[in-house]
């Protein structure tokens, strides 16, 4: 709370009095106050897109649910972050994510450090009641260091944004629309042939799932790179007991 010249707003989140500066969003103030709000597309430092809809919150006086990641704070607002209704919506949204592509946690290199998987557990998703769509996507392993597996992509566009906004290469973008949307490099060419990619690996670092991963490294290494979750894990059945024993 120092002299930034910004106006300070006081308001209420989940019954708790909080304050933030006028240019802050609800999610920023929530994080400062240790109020957990689930999100998949938001990442500090990248432009907000408000696309994953998991951070939707109720704001008294508004008949619409608003995404906490783009909603600016204002004086006297009353925010509810986890009503029963919101919890139900969030689980259903997660289920839609799972039903869209081929998310098979047990064989995924990001098993255990995946933000989608973690959210599913944290929010108490017991199963996906929507029928799976089982689309067909090829895996692009043409890059010498990285792999793109669209089967595991949730279209959060973090890779697109980090590549454009931070690295300045804009190798990534989305092609198509609707359910056919897909992340691509350059003119939808194999990643390894990309003219614009600098192989900086930022896209891999920000990917919340196993869609973008580094070759020859398993999940443990990626978690080290990302410094998010230090959980050790090996997904193969034969070694499963061993690892579990090690943890316990």
């Amino acid at each position, binding site marked *: 709370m120092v002299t930034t010249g910004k106006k300070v707003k006081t308001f209420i989140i989940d019954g708790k009095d909080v304050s933030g500066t006028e240019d802050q969003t609800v999610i920023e103030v929530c994080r400062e106050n240790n109020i957990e709000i689930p999100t998949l597309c938001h990442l500090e430092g990248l432009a907000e897109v*408000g696309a994953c809809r998991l951070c939707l919150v109720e704001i008294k006086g508004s008949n619409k649910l608003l995404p906490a990641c783009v909603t600016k704070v204002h004086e006297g607002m009353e925010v509810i972050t986890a009503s029963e209704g919101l919890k139900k*919506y969030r689980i259903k949204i997660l289920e*839609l994510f799972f039903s869209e592509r081929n998310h098979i946690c047990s064989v995924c290199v990001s098993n255990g450090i995946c933000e989608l998987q973690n959210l599913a557990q944290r929010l108490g998703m017991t199963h996906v009641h929507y029928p799976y*769509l089982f689309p067909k996507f090829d895996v692009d392993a043409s890059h010498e260091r990285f792999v793109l597996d669209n089967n595991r992509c949730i279209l959060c566009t973090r890779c697109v944004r980090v590549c454009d906004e931070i690295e300045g290469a804009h190798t990534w973008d989305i092609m198509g*629309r*609707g359910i056919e949307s897909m992340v691509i490099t350059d003119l939808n060419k194999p990643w390894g042939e990309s003219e614009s990619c600098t192989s900086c690996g930022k896209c891999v670092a920000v990917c919340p799932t196993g869609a973008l991963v580094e070759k020859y490294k398993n999940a443990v290494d990626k978690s080290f790179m990302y410094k998010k979750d230090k959980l050790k894990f090996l997904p193969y059945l034969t070694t499963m007991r061993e690892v579990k024993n090690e943890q316990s």
Partner: protein
Amino acid sequence: MIIEELIEYAQKLHLREKTGKHEVKVCSAAGCLSLKSEAVADELRKKIAELGIEEEVSVKPVGCLGLCSKGPLVTIDSGNRVYQNVKPEDANLIIEKAKTDPQSETDKFFTRQQKIVLENSGQVDPEKIHDYILRDGYKALHDVLEMTPQEVIDEVTISGLRGRGGAGYPTGLKWNTVAKTGNIKKYVICNADEGDPGAFMDRSLLEGDPHRVLEGMAIAAYAVGADEGYVYCRAEYPLAIKRLKNAVKQAERAGVLGKNIFGTTFSFTVDLRIGAGAFVCGEETALIASIEGKRGQPRPRPPYPAEVGLWGSPTLINNVETYGNIAPILRNGGEWYAAIGTEKSKGTKVFALAGKIVNTGLIEIPMGISLREVIYDIGGGIPDGKKFKAVQTGGPSGGCIPEQFLDKPVDYESLSELGSIMGSGGMIIMDETSCMVDVAKYFLDFTKDESCGKCVPCRVGTVQLYNILDRITKGTGTMEDLDELDDLCDLVKNTSLCGLGQAAPNPVLSTIQYFRDEYIAHIVDKKCPAGVCKFHTHAETGKSEVII
């Protein structure tokens, strides 16, 4: 330049053409053109030349005359008599009528209508600015420049005009928001991305009277303090694009667009941007992205475009028909306009009548008349002795209204109470041969294909909704599916990012509400009451039952 000079300019252009005492007006809107109305016009010109009566009768191509299903249409002078299904060989007869009996009996289709937006459609030659000027065109713009911008906005506010694109946001309020952003760069955009299937109001207006839209935009620009404008028109309307381009050029030449309009300090230029086939671009933030040359994906609002719009500048976005109302409002006063319509829905609304109805075409009615009047008096009822089933308004964002509500008035509130919306003005009539589950599936097929893919409830939710409806229409749906439809509709409606997703469940919800028995017939009895859906029997599908 003063208004007299403009009129003089128009008269000079007018005199250069040889016009006869009576004008035979041949509809040259897309519908009639595709029914070869040009051949009719050519034959008429030929016959007139043969008879040497150019001074008496002349031919004029005009915009939409309304009754599209019965084209090619021809009318004489400003008579209400419209000749239908005209063929080139009818030329002699029409010329004879023009000479002897230009004003004849009126058609019922026209008497119940009230034309404000369409007053010039079918009267002026859309490719000639002088025709427009000589019918009080650009007079409102001229007069407006002597008012303060705030006075202009107040007049629009008094008129009670609401956005004609669908949501019905008060136009005056929107203008005010943009005006209040201060003395900075601003834009005015005309949304001509008429994406609702079954709607062709904007197309007809742009094809039939493009200058009216330009004049409305110029007045809006003056009121909010903008100097640059864009018309975003969908690529599916090549004729409208051609006529708009032509109109912009003519208006610049006449000095009613461009620098220092009417000799004042007000300047306003208009550029055209062509859509490329994306329904979501009708959503204003997506439209802006598209003008900026990007993928037409919406972004969360607020901030609204009125504050942060095109290239980050405050931007006024109104629909074609909204701009079409502006000049008459300024010419006749807001009070005049507010006297038409109902308490909350003022003025008139243009509708495109289509589907299973006798008179398909373009109509303009005062707000508040009943659906029954629209369908039976103006529309002429259902053809082939079939029974009316439902009227669909609002396109993929709207709903289906059944028989028992036909006496409800046509206004924003009544239609949304019925689970539909006013929408941009498509009105599709369905009879007993239409299956309502199939209709719901049709609309979800539309929205799933048109979903931009940015947010997950719309991207995946619409596909899941479609799949359930598909199952039901194939006879493999269950009663649980019906509950799931309700539940998923609720999710998509409340959590989607933009209007497309939020409104996508409406066709499903309204058909479940009013035609639940049809859904149950599909699920329980494995029967389609309308006989539209074909069920696969086990014999057809072979060994495996149809599962999910």
